[in-house]
């Protein structure tokens, strides 16, 4: 990666949120300022709301004029606003990874893939971690922090 590239393409990640398959918040972390600080309760509500909206948007599909696409309809993948950009990656098991970045970030999906790898390595393979429970894995926090900070 060239330095000029870094200057032109902001790579700031604001926050990461992980939602389990029932819609509950299991991980939330801020990396950079940019989003309003909310209380834990607010984040819980947000996760539940997003879970519901994700399900609705998967159903709310205009009738395709071409023959319908072969794959299952998906929910929100990208949400854009003035102040941030939200990229959502849903795993096959229903876990959702929400990444909040700057509005014009182009490589959010790369970051998400890497976060998913770290999740698989340091959370899923952790024998003391209970599925669908809040994530309290120190190795995951450490590696995630160093990965995200190294990109900024």
């Amino acid at each position, binding site marked *: 990666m060239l330095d000029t590239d870094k200057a032109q393409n902001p790579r700031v990640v604001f926050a990461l949120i992980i939602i389990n398959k029932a819609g509950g918040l299991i991980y939330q972390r801020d990396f950079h300022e940019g989003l309003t600080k909310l209380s834990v309760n607010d984040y819980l509500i947000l996760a539940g709301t997003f879970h519901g909206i994700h399900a609705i948007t998967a159903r709310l*599909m205009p*009738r395709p004029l071409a023959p319908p696409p072969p794959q299952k309809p998906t929910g929100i993948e990208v949400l854009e606003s003035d102040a941030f950009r939200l990229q959502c990656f849903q795993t096959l098991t229903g876990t959702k990874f929400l990444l909040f970045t700057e509005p014009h970030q182009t490589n959010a999906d790369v970051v998400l893939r890497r976060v998913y790898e770290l999740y698989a390595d340091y959370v899923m393979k952790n024998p003391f971690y209970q599925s669908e429970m809040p994530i309290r894995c120190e190795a995951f926090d450490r590696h995630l922090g160093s990965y995200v900070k190294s990109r900024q």
Partner: protein
Amino acid sequence: MGPHVIKQWLSGPASSSAATGATKPLRPQSGSSVVSAGELDNGPARTRPSRLSAEDDAKLVFGTVFSLRNMVRKLGGPDDHFISYRTGQYKLHYYETPTNLKFVMLTDIKTNNLRMVLHQIYVSLYVEFGVSSITIYVVKNPLSRRYLEAIALLFIDIVVAVEHPGGEGVANELFEMGLESFIVCPQFYPPSGKG
């Protein structure tokens, strides 16, 4: 802040093949309903009656948009505006006017930011055809300003929602026709081939 008028159009594929000029026709709009919706596919869950009615779709869209808007406002600050979202199958563009009127447009995935387009629709078509019929009404009544604004908004809602009641129906048809020609026109499709 209850739901005001929501206009919903489902446009055909707005991909960069506008050069071919072969655009699919817009679905026919019922000229005067509050929500001029096409048919929305209910997806793979066919256990319930095969398709939601247009009104149910409208309610779903409104609920989704409202919740997303609140979420964005909470996260990005009170001045933040939710612009659009994309799923694997479609893209939804959103524009809210200062008067809490909401414009929603669903297109295919490749379309870029349509916020300016929705703004144009609001400014040139809606305000011109939807509102012009009421300006005379507003000017003639020497009421207080807030009451006037409330009446004006209410009147706009009524104009759009009522079915061809003599004079008001004309303004609404003009709006629909203007909108259709605006959207189907090839210049509408922004060049989505870039970046």
